[in-house]
């Protein structure tokens, strides 16, 4: 991937992160395509098949992958429309989990840019650490990986798909009331 494309993608993602940290959610929403799928799968602890902790009875049905599948439970599984309604909820003045609001810091690293499935798209991999501070002493760390599909729309990048993979199986934060 050409260095200037990588640079452009990085700058796009950093600006996107800044919009979230500054709670400019309406502007952030405009960075998503109308057909976006915004998905944070669930996760569970499994022994791999080679583990000697188990003698597997039925290898055909044994499932070692930790992440939930697309048709299973997720922590977030959103469209642009439902994200828009989540933002509208925050604007009611009665979304108590965000009132007082969270203070977030989205830190991105390990950004890799790869060709997409079609010429107008890119696949972008990144790691994230999102720090959330709220009220006086509340703090949470949401750490994981993101896989995005960016699409060029009228000469600007937009997010056409975002998969957010958290590392925790039992979420240590009391809720997920922020965006990633």
């Amino acid at each position: 991937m050409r260095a200037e494309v990588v640079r452009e993608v990085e700058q796009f993602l950093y600006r996107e992160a800044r919009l979230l940290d500054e709670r400019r959610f309406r502007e952030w929403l405009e960075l998503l395509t109308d057909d976006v799928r915004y998905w944070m799968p669930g996760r569970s602890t499994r022994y791999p098949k080679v583990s000697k902790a188990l003698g597997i009875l039925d290898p055909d049905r044994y499932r070692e992958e930790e992440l939930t599948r697309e048709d299973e439970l997720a922590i977030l599984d959103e469209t642009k429309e439902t994200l828009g309604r989540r933002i509208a909820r925050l604007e009611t003045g009665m979304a108590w989990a965000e009132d007082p609001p969270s203070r977030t810091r989205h830190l991105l690293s390990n950004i890799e840019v790869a060709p997409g499935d079609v010429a107008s798209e890119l696949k972008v991999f990144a790691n994230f650490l999102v720090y959330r501070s709220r009220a006086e002493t509340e703090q949470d760390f949401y750490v994981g990986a993101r896989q995005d599909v960016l699409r060029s729309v009228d000469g600007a990048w937009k997010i056409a798909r975002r998969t957010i993979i958290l590392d925790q199986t039992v979420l240590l934060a009391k809720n997920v009331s922020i965006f990633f």
Partner: protein
Amino acid sequence: MGIDVTNLVDTEQGLISRRIFIEPEIYAQELEQIFARCWLFLCHESQIPQPGDFFSTSMGEDPVLVVRDSQGQVHALLNVCRHRGNRLCRADQGNAATFTCAYHGWTYGNDGQLVGVPYLREAYFGELAQERWGLLPVAQLDSYKGLLFATFDPEAPPLLEYLGAVTWYLDAFFDRCEGGIEVVGGMHKWVVPCNWKFPAENFAGDGYHVSWSHVSAIRTGFSSNFRLQPTSGGTLLSPGNGHAIVTIDPTDVADPPVPEIVAYEEAIRPQVAQRLGPRYSLVNPIVGTVFPNFSFLRATARTFRVWHPRGPDKIELWSWIYVDKAAPPEVKEAMRLAGVRGFSPSGTFEQDDMDNWQECTRTCRGVVARRLALNTQMGLGHERYNKDLQAWASDYRFSESNHRQFYRRWAQLMRAGSWAEVASAAGVRRG
């Protein structure tokens, strides 16, 4: 002799001491007299359909392995190696013929029998009584309409007696269509810094908070809006033994305003009414708690969950989304999404609850705040036993009548030395 809770719960006056939400000694007594005594929910049978399938959970703070053995029989076993007490299985789910402890390699069959001990002949001289050192099974294990429950107390009444009159209400959630329900794959698990009784009482009977806590989600289209009308019908029901159900008027709809779900519910209504019988024309059950910590919901989303206690001021919230087994695929998909968007860590309803329960718990740390009883007086004296509904019923749809019954049961169990004493205190005959 434990702490006498007589003065901490006054259901006649509607006063609940805040000590019961924060004091470690009271929590320790709850683990003994409630969680090691009551029937607790484990999982749904559809989660372990085949031989070898297992699911890890806990009963109180004790880790428990629910496993279908190679012959197809379900066991619930303390997930603790009998040798040095190590936690045996650390996976959430899977399929196994045997489980081997990571410490010294003791191996147990999927029926709990100790089947392998390294150096048995050399180090134990073949003298270990292997048959006596299997995994500890629960005292009783049973299921109701696919819901698996267990108790560690051999003296506990049978499950059906423990559930009592709540069974019809459970049917309205879990058996309203042929084939009952199935669970959507995967679960939500998260830690919430609150006492376990705040969520349990909330699902037991807090219709009141919906019209304030959750207005933001209702106004932005995540659920229907009948709850905001003061004239809406409904009643809170206590069918006995501390179990509690929230109902709405049979003509009101509490489903997510998603076209597939609304059309489906309308279409199956006659057959649900026929299956559940005449009581379904009187009330529409939408939320409830089976004492102590199993709750369920079919408004906004279809979920059931366990509030696992993790200390006086912490729970692990384990939550499932369920669907009618007979529902068409597009309805199941719509229910899955309604669950993710309404009742999950990110749920537009649920996330606000976490925050309130946390602060209700945290303020109990203050010695002055702790002196102030919680006001549980809503609708005091405006409740009566309704024969048709087989339950104590509140006169208005907002009341704390269910809270009072929940805490009455809590106090009975916390005072009683045994199940026999609970039965006599409750004035019900057993056997």
